[in-house]
């Protein structure tokens, strides 16, 4: 008697394409997925609990360890939340805000660059992978110039940034910005325009608008599903209301759209940095803030448009030097919640690509 049997496959925790230590138990019918169950927490470090035993300032470097490919934006999100809690948002010097925008958008380009690269690797385009990393590294060179480190910057401070931009930074930035459009064109040439890649991604794992909102998608993933929203434009924080930029929106919400939205966003980031370079004023980079940070009793929920979605910080303060409760709303953690639903009926090869297209970073999922 012949009979068929479902195959249970452990995708992870150490698997080439789970982008870290993430495990997904798949039930396979042939090579088509009938059921997927996420198992998280292999990288759980208890950062929310750690925050309760660190002072507000001491917690800044830990944010770089969340989404370790976009550390600058994480720090910014945290610093912005505490500034709101302290009520010093208005006092931050303009130059500091401009610097934040410049380094933040650079970080976004770096993060999307690594997204493109890992996406390319997951469809086995090894050369495209190297091109993505090549350009990301040049962005990191600039961030290293500013903060002294490539990934865990610790550059943002309450009321400003740690130091002014170093000499020669603007020249190098200008050179890089002149180079980047050609690089993005190259991405389109080698991967995005490639017929094999299109066949692999167009129409694969579509997420409808309703589903995206229901599952709490944010950021580029939501925009790929046809929801026109961007915190930088809708609720402008910092000095984003002074810049002109488009918000790329795609309608189908499939894997291809999720890639294209990010590539378009890289172009928009270049535009924003150009405008910030022109408009940056002279002046101090730090507001006058007390040495010991003691926010008043209360709570705040503040969000920032991270490279992966809305990074939210809910901070409850009891008036002491340490947060009473600090909650990190991480976009990747919520985005990955859709994966079991998304993977149903997909081919194993497509599931890997769909997972990559969600742009997960395990440091932020497990915290």
């Amino acid at each position, binding site marked *: 008697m012949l009979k068929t049997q479902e195959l249970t496959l452990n995708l992870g925790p150490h698997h080439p394409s789970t982008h870290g230590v993430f495990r997904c138990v798949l039930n396979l019918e042939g090579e088509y997925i009938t059921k997927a169950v996420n198992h998280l927490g292999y990288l759980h470090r208890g950062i929310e609990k750690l925050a309760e035993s660190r002072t507000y300032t*001491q917690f800044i470097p830990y944010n770089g360890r969340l989404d370790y490919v976009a550390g600058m934006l994480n720090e910014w999100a945290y610093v912005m939340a505490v500034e709101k809690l302290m009520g010093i948002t208005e006092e931050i010097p303009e130059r500091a805000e401009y610097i934040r925008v410049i380094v933040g958008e650079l970080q976004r380009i770096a993060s999307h660059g690594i997204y493109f690269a890992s996406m390319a690797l997951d469809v086995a385009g090894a050369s495209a992978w190297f091109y993505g990393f090549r350009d990301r590294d040049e962005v990191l060179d600039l961030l*290293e110039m500013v903060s*002294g*480190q490539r990934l*865990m910057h*610790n550059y943002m401070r309450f009321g400003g940034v740690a130091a002014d931009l170093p000499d020669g930074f603007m020249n190098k930035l200008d050179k890089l910005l002149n180079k980047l459009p050609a690089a993005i064109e190259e991405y389109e*040439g080698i991967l995005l325009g*490639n017929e*094999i890649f*299109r066949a692999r991604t167009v129409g694969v794992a579509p997420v409808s608008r309703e589903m995206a909102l229901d599952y709490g998608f944010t950021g580029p993933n939501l925009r790929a599903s046809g929801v026109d929203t961007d915190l930088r434009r809708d609720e402008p924080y910092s000095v984003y209301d002074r810049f002109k930029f488009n918000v790329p929106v795609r309608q189908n919400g499939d894997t291809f759209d999720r890639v294209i939205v990010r590539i378009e966003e890289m172009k928009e980031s270049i535009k924003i940095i150009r405008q910030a370079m022109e408009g940056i004023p002279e002046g101090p980079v730090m507001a006058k803030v007390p040495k010991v940070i003691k926010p008043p009793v209360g709570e705040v929920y503040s969000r920032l448009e991270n490279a992966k979605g809305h990074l939210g910080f809910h901070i409850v303060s009891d008036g002491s030097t340490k947060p009473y409760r600090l909650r990190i709303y991480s976009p990747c953690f919520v985005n990955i919640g859709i994966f079991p639903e998304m993977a149903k009926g997909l081919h194993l090869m497509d599931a890997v690509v769909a997972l990559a297209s969600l742009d997960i970073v395990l440091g932020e999922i497990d915290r």
Partner: protein
Amino acid sequence: MYGQGLIKGLSITLKHFFERKITQQYPEERPVLPDRFKGSLTLKVPKCIACGLCANSCPNNCIKIESEKDENNKKRLTGYKVMLERCLFCGFCVEACPTKALLWTKDFELTKYFREDVNLDLFSSYVPSPDDEKPAKPAKEDEESAQAS
């Protein structure tokens, strides 16, 4: 036309095939590090006033300072240890230092054969250099008392 993207991809890789390569040949070619680079730590011992701000600012408590009062009732440093294996390289200690005694170096090759060697003892490994302001040698009895404690 179908197949255009395929040919475009081939032309891009072929272009890079003959291009100059960008890999840095690391041990021979040293990386150019920016001034703010956070490598290892160094302490200019004569400048240190043992105030302990660096230790307080450290998120992971990886700086241990030993000090004692001298005859003028001034604090004097007798030991300075950094547990580099726990260090976040955040730089709060360097920022906190009021006398600019604690500084980053550009030394990034911190690999060691044994775990204990990772940690730094900045006090005893200090080598006086001519550009420091006259190094005050710790008195003999101080060393003895430090060893005793």
